[in-house]
């Protein structure tokens, strides 16, 4: 009961369906789970099982139809766009499979972007961003543009960007999906280190090797968590 209360994320009977034309596709069918503060969780499941959908709901990028979602103790039901943006910038960090760095900004500027949206002055922003670039081992690449970097480097920049605003939770959708195995394990090592600092980490992946590096794995089957 105690970990339950400390859960940074609590999902209760979450339902989500997509309507395309006359067809209705039920993706999540009353999903419940708890993720404790500081946990590192992998989400696995076959393609189309709803992993990204779940992660988007957790990241307040998408809405859900039914059920309840408590993030850090607060209900996320029926948030408007503005409130969602606020929670995202305060509590959440994102890492994507395709990095999603902004092409015309340098590594440093990319990392500093979340701070820009928190109205932190430019100088201070760059100092903090530099710290995080150091943390991912890319301080020498600060003034490079994304297209001058390798996939692994880009993902590390993206991780620095996800960290820079000191989120409580980092959501990563197949962060190693576009990387080779050596680079993948580097990135995972980095994510583990970050997790060791107490940041909750939720990673969607297809790879068992990656899932094995996490504390536990949630299997999605047919819109529900497979407990078997």
């Amino acid at each position, binding site marked *: 009961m105690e970990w339950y209360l400390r859960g940074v994320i609590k999902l209760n009977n979450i339902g989500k369906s997509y309507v395309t034309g006359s067809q209705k596709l039920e993706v999540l069918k009353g999903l419940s789970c708890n993720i404790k503060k500081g946990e590192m969780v992998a989400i696995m499941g076959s393609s189309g099982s709803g992993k*990204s959908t779940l992660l988007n709901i957790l990241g307040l*990028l*998408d809405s859900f139809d039914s059920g309840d979602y408590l993030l850090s103790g607060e209900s996320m039901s029926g948030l408007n766009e503005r409130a969602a*943006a*606020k929670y*995202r910038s305060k509590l959440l960090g994102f890492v994507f*499979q395709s990095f999603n760095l902004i092409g015309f900004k340098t590594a440093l500027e990319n990392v500093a972007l979340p701070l*820009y*949206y928190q109205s932190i002055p430019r100088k201070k922003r760059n100092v903090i961003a530099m710290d995080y670039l150091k943390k991912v081992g890319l301080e020498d690449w600060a003034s490079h543009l994304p297209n001058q970097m390798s996939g692994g480097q880009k993902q590390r920049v993206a991780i620095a960007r996800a960290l820079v605003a000191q989120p409580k939770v980092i959501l990563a959708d197949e962060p190693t999906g576009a990387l080779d195995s050596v680079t993948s394990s580097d990135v995972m090592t980095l994510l583990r280190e970050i997790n060791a600092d107490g940041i909750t980490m939720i990673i969607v992946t297809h790879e068992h090797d990656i899932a094995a590096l996490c504390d536990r794995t949630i299997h999605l089957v047919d819109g529900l968590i497979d407990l078997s």
Partner: protein
Amino acid sequence: MFNRDTWLEIANTVLSNPMRTFLTGLSIALGVFILVVMQGLGFGLQNGVQNQFSDDAVNSIWVDAGRTQLAYRGNMPNRQVKMRNSDVDAMFQQMDTVHAYSRRVRIWGVVMAHEDQQSNFPLRGVDPDHLMLENTTLTDGRYISSRDVAEETKVAVLGATVVEDLFEGVDPIGTYLLIGGVQFRVVGTFDDPASRWENKMAYLPFTTAQNIFRSSDKVDQIILGTGDMPVADTRSLSDALLSWFKDRKVVHPDDARGVRIENNNEEYERFQNIFLGIELFIWGLGLLTLLAGAVGVANILAIAVKERTKEIGVRKALGASSISVLGLVVQESLALMIVSGSAGLITGVGLLEVVSPMIDHEYFKNPQVDFRIALVALGILAVVGVVSGIGPALRAVSIKPVEALRDE
């Protein structure tokens, strides 16, 4: 609001498709350029015509007598109506206020001689206000004074051509010349650049001229100054004067020639209206061109927003508020408008500056752009920039991060 980051972002999108940006910018610059140049040309035309008007005071009413057209109260048509001193006095008596006035007698071809130079020139007998009513610029000395008129002094004020022909570089002020064999002292000289005609004249005191050269009490013309009376009032004044005169001189009310009154105020107003029309036309044309530019900008922004869908999604995921996304697009539109608009403004003004000194025509002078008009044009640009940015900006705001971020 416009810090280095925003400029960087604006520069990036704007330069991501240089050709498209250039063409859009060009259409805006062209719109402003056309607006500015046409404005300048219109202004030049106005200046020129205004200058023609400056021959005479704008606020004046001119009274003339001529031959009647219609038989009236026992008088045959084709009768020469004569204005006399007594008529003028009676007219002043029944008027409430007389702001300024001058009677005129004209004598054609009088021999004027100074030392061994002599030539034929017309002369005019005038009152002191004639200086202002005819818009004469004195170049030296003084004009006819009321004392001259009262005492019938024999003084003359000479036009530039007269001075040139008779004095050959000698300063004429204080010297004497013979006008029709009578000795006059030159007290002043003038130059009337708007009327070369006037420069061939000698002005004498009205009374002197009437007595010596007319030997009757006939007055050729009366000019009334209307001061700062509103145009409507001058209209009723000239109407009232006309019927008063017709009645006094027994002229049929429908007769258009016997007594004529011309109201310069009205004339001027008519021109002002024409210029207002021209100005509206110019503005309309310029604004339409600007509108075309604005549609271009809206278009380029809409495409840019579409191309940046993913980026905007990322920004939102990183905490960008709707306002900041809105600002991103609107600022871009503003920047595009102001930069290319200023380019058009500067080239337009520059062209006028270069061309202006080369143009010298009677009806076309000093084509220039009013600084205020330039400011107004920039203001309009800014508004148009914001307005054309709003559509694409709202589209950008409505982008949902999930949809933008979905990997295809």
